[in-house]
């Protein structure tokens, strides 16, 4: 009975903590969908993959979302045709590299400022490296769930003009299924219907209405998934208590593993995790605290279900494995060589 109570408390605390940020992410996603012209967005993205990955990592300063809110935005970026490097860079870095999280970490670790700056630095390095690895995949559709890859535009080959860059009538020259409404008005049935309608509509009122509809749609879709993810995270925490995770070890190496496992299990939001980590500052090295602060926002148990709405499971395993190894490597180097 006590365990059931604990489980319910944990479940609701995770949900209450995550839902506002999911709403914020959905809001940004809808704004991107209806108010940002995809062609303009694509022209702003650097051609160089390193710069694109770095830009993805730094977009968090414009969209301050935690790890629950970044998934809808990353999904929208991919659907808008943004390069994989940018979307992955954003997905991994945005929950940490944003002003709210920076401020919260500063408040918690003011007397250890290196934790604050290394958290941002390590996150950016890992996000950019993983994004670069994923950028070898020019066609991101095989990485995504089938229902999303169907909505994605085909990748642009070198020397080829991006779709929509020519005359409007050129739409009919592309492959796919189209609905011809009246002369000059062609609706692609491959794209999201809302997006297509929005792009043809000029009325702000209509756009706002569509934005609200899209928000409701995304919240219903992702909110349900978040509830399942939170329930799983709460269940795991009841079955495997935090003390068991912490008892994995407190040495320079084992403490990193313990804190990474703890970060994965507790699934705490990146905006408040610094205060949670602060309570372990007396027992653990700076490296293991950083492992918690860097790994947790990128990978957590609650978000697997959300990520599964976007990526195939193979992609998620790759993401988790690379992020885990890189976090372990950087924080271990800090533990073994840092002063």
């Amino acid at each position: 009975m006590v365990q059931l109570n604990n489980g319910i408390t944990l479940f609701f605390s995770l949900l209450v903590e995550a839902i506002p940020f999911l709403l914020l992410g959905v809001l940004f996603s809808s704004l991107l969908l209806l108010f940002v012209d995809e062609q303009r967005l694509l022209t702003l993205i650097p051609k160089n993959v390193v710069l694109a990955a770095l830009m993805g990592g730094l977009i968090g300063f414009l969209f301050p979302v935690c790890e629950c809110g970044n998934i809808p935005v990353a999904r929208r970026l991919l659907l808008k045709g943004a390069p994989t490097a940018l979307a992955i860079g954003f997905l991994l870095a945005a929950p940490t590299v944003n002003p709210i999280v920076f401020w919260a970490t500063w408040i918690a670790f003011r007397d250890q400022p290196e934790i604050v700056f290394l958290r941002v630095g390590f996150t950016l390095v890992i996000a950019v490296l993983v994004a670069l690895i994923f950028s070898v995949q020019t066609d991101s559709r095989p990485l995504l769930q089938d229902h999303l890859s169907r909505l994605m535009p085909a990748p642009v080959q070198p020397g080829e003009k991006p779709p929509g860059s020519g005359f409007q009538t050129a739409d009919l020259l592309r492959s796919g299924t189209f609905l011809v409404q009246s002369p000059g008005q062609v609706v692609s049935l491959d794209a999201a219907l809302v997006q297509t309608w929005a792009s043809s509509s000029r009325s702000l009122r209509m756009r706002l209405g569509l934005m609200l509809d899209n928000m409701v749609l995304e919240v219903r879709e992702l909110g349900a998934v978040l509830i399942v993810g939170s329930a799983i995270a709460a269940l795991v925490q009841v079955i495997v208590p935090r003390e068991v995770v912490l008892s994995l070890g407190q040495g320079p190496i084992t403490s990193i593993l313990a804190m990474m496992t703890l970060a994965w299990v507790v699934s705490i939001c990146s905006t408040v995790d610094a205060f949670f980590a602060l309570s372990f500052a007396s027992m653990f090295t700076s490296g293991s605290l950083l492992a918690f602060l860097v790994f947790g926002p990128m990978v957590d148990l609650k978000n697997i279900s959300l990520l599964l709405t976007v990526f195939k499971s193979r992609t998620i395993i790759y993401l988790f494995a690379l992020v885990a190894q890189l976090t372990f490597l950087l924080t271990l180097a800090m533990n073994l060589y840092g002063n």
Partner: protein
Amino acid sequence: MASPFWRRAVGIRPTPTQPLDCLVWLVMAVLLVLLALLMLVGDHARVRVRDFTWQGRQVGVEDRAFVITFSRPMDTASVETNLTITPPLPGKISWAGRRLAYTLQQPIPYGQTFRVNLLQARDRFAPNKTGKGSRFQPFQAEFSSRKRAFLYIGVEGEEANRLVLADPAQRQRLILTPKNLRVLAFKAYPLGDRVLFSAGDSSQDQGALNQQLYRVTTGIQPRPPVDLDLRGKPFWQPGRPQPISGKLELVLDNRQYQNLKFDLSADGQVIVVQRVNRSNPADFGAWVVPAQAAPYRLNTQPGGDFLIAPDSQSLVLLQGTGTAIIDLARNTGSVAAKPLDFLPEYGQVLDITPDGTAAAMVNFNQNDPEKQFQQSLVLVTNQGQKTQLLQVRGGILGAHFDPMGPLLYVVISELETRPAQGTLDTAAYVQRPLLLTVNLKTLAQTRLLRLPPQPDVHMSLSPDGRFMLLNVSDQGDGLKSADPSAGSGSSIWTLDLRRDTTTDQVLATDPQPYPFKGLRATWLP
């Protein structure tokens, strides 16, 4: 070809190999090798002290603890065994994570330099518990306590009516205020770098009625661990200016209101002044002068003598025949707020403990005909407990809580009958002051020093509780006034308050005179 079992287990459908697959496996293999190499190389991190809050600082009695922060969680026993302070400063060690807090058991003695050494220690993850091959970076640091110095109002020659700073160790003096100001009262700021004083124009007869409040710098450069004056200031604003002595600044003029008496809060942020409107004497009361805001009238009933409590947030004000405790922050509106507390029996507050838990108060026994002309010294705690410490026929002139132990220094005046001298003279009463201590635990009284007959004695206990200054009239005739405005001379004596550590008792010593004269000699904080 059938997909491998693990792919089926995690729900991965067979898909053609993508360019990403090969690269990810390759990178993961490389990272695994790097991790293995890193682990094989072993732990080379140096363990060190990251921060020591008193490093190179000059501390005072208000600083009760320093904090040492380590770069890693430490083996606490190894640190506690090896930490040394020279000369010794008794204290207690407590831990909060990687931080060690050392709380002094007694106020730090002034005028000394201390060295902190931690030459070896182990972190919690150290493989070698014997301490051999230690990777701890030895730590050494120094800090000092503030120098002893006192202020007085000069009475002789160039110093007459001017504020003077004295260095008792070097026996040197420095005049802080200009000739044209006649200093009446003063109070030093908490770090001793500035002094607030009231002064009138020395060319006018009614200087005491025309006093204005000024601030003057002493030239002392404070280096406190925490500077209250700089707290909250943005980093681009200049810090403390270079110390110059004698830099004068007018704090409160007397154009519309006469200034009568003032007090400065313990944190140096609030001044309370008793003022009266020049054109409307009914407009009389206490004003608050905050450090960063305009002065305002404290909305409460007018009162008499007052002092600001050690918390710097409340005022202890004599109202009617009792003492009211007034919140300085809440009494700013148009409607007078009720006092926080009112103690109807006590007509004077002589001193309050620095932590605000107890006060030494005087009961004039006006409601008890049997005790007429007797004064009682009572210890009143913030829990409402009242303990009578003394009852004297005469007056209680002053009291100071001892920062070193459970003692209260008290100066009382006992009435003595002087026999008639000659045929035309008649017998007279003279007040003979006496310095004594009262042990607050046992209530035992110890007489320390009898002083020549005089109506008033000014006593100042050094912040560390190790020395006392006494202003004693040198006229020989105790009936002569010691009022500074009367211009009479006054000797400054110092007492070395050596004590028996087993009984907490101060050993009586002979007072030593300073070779210069002055009034209201008071130690800098």
